[in-house]
């Protein structure tokens, strides 16, 4: 591989994506370096979720390129398993497997996909559950957990694959306000450890606190981006200003 750590770990170049005649992404470019935390914000329907779903090939693209660690994602030849080992994803609706306990949810992919020995996987899974502060809930089923707890299990489940990049798709949007915080704290811990994170979020305060870089998207393009301070305090584009005035 030609990729080295001084090059972007995820490189999005002029990506175009449409659903039928509806063009959702009209040429978006973002570079993310290893260890960076970026937040993508913008009104609903601006294509932010679609963009990060393209990064791990859940959606295909019609133009441009996305590389992860130098490897083109939208390539027929691509080994999706290799990609998905590198890129973990957490969803808005948690999407835990309802018929498996918290621990089993975390262990499943390493066991079945990576085919690692059970003892190792279990040890790691227990450590991860502890890390997301859910000790004692190992044997609970998703239906027995609150939304925030389920979402933290989902994060642990993704981490169990030892990804290099984590994608968070509006992970707090479906949660009760009081449980949002526990999930954000978990993500913040992760960022502090140097995990590369790409977040789509509506939590502006959180974005400001945790992000290295903020991208504002609207109608399929990146309108404005910058480091949190300059972005929030010195936004120049009228669309950004309008959006910020509504959410802040």
């Amino acid at each position: 591989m030609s990729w080295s750590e001084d090059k972007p770990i995820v490189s999005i170049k002029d990506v175009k994506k449409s659903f039928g005649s509806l063009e959702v992404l009209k040429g978006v470019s973002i570079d993310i370096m290893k260890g960076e935390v970026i937040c993508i914000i913008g009104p609903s329907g601006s294509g932010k979720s679609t963009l990060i779903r393209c990064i791990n090939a859940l959606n295909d693209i019609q133009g441009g390129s996305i590389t992860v660690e130098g490897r083109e994602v939208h390539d027929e030849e691509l080994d999706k398993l290799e990609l998905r080992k590198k890129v973990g994803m957490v969803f808005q609706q948690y999407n835990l497997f309802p018929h498996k306990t918290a621990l089993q949810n975390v262990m499943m992919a390493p066991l079945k996909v990576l085919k690692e020995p059970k003892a190792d996987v279990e040890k790691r899974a227990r450590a991860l559950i502890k890390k997301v502060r859910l000790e004692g809930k190992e044997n609970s089923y998703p239906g027995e957990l609150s939304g925030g707890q389920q979402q933290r299990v989902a994060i642990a489940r993704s981490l169990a694959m030892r990804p290099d990049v984590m994608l968070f798709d509006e992970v707090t949007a479906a949660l009760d306000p009081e449980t949002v915080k526990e999930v954000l704290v978990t993500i913040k811990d992760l960022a502090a450890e140097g995990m590369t994170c790409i977040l789509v979020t509506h939590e502006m305060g959180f974005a400001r606190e945790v992000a290295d870089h903020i991208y504002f998207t609207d109608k399929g393009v990146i309108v404005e981006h910058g480091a949190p301070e300059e972005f929030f305090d010195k936004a120049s584009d009228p669309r950004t200003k309008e959006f910020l005035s509504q959410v802040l």
Partner: protein
Amino acid sequence: MTSVEAFFEMLYDVHGINVTIGYDSWDRGQFLDGLWLTVQLSVLSIFFSLLVGAIGAWAQGSPLRIIRALVGGFVTFFRNTPPLVQLYFFFFALGTVLRIESDTGLAQPLVSNFGWAVISFSLFAGAMNTEIFRSGIEAVPNSTIEASYAMGFTRLQTYIYIVLPLAIRISLPSLGTNLVNLVKTTTLAYALAVPELLYVSAQIWSDQLNVREMMNVLLLSYVGLVAILVWILHRWEKALRIPGFGG
């Protein structure tokens, strides 16, 4: 045993209730053989109908239009025609044509009447199972499947570890209804002179002229058989139940 027989004889002598299978060992033997055959008929038909349903539901996900159309045609046909006529069609029409020469030179049926009954019931219930399984599979949320792909599971792994376990749970109530119906449908084998429970009971009541008694015994036997099946299904459902949902 003798005290039981004495009780049934007393029942007849004193109250005129003639339950011959209670005291007559020949009738009892007949009855139990019939019961056993009904159980065999049910178990085999249930097994094969589940197989037909699983294959049908799997084929229904095929990318080939022609395969989907064939499965759809099969389901539509068996759901909209009478099971008794289906059974006659298999036994009297196909069964008459499908014969082989035996050693004696006489044409022998390739499949026995019992065999045709199993085939017919399995296809009839299997058509329904196909639809039940298919809608169970469709009811698994797309986002759950997507999460599985995102974790690196292949299509087949997702099907085995995520879709099927959930689809079975979703299908179970409807499946139970269908299997109960299947057990009730096995009585149709009477029309092919398969000596199952209804057939032997009819023989007993024509010999002994105790229609009323045998009829009630028969009805209770079927209700009992169905109850056992329902109990098994209930146990299964309970074993599969996931804590924390709908409690």
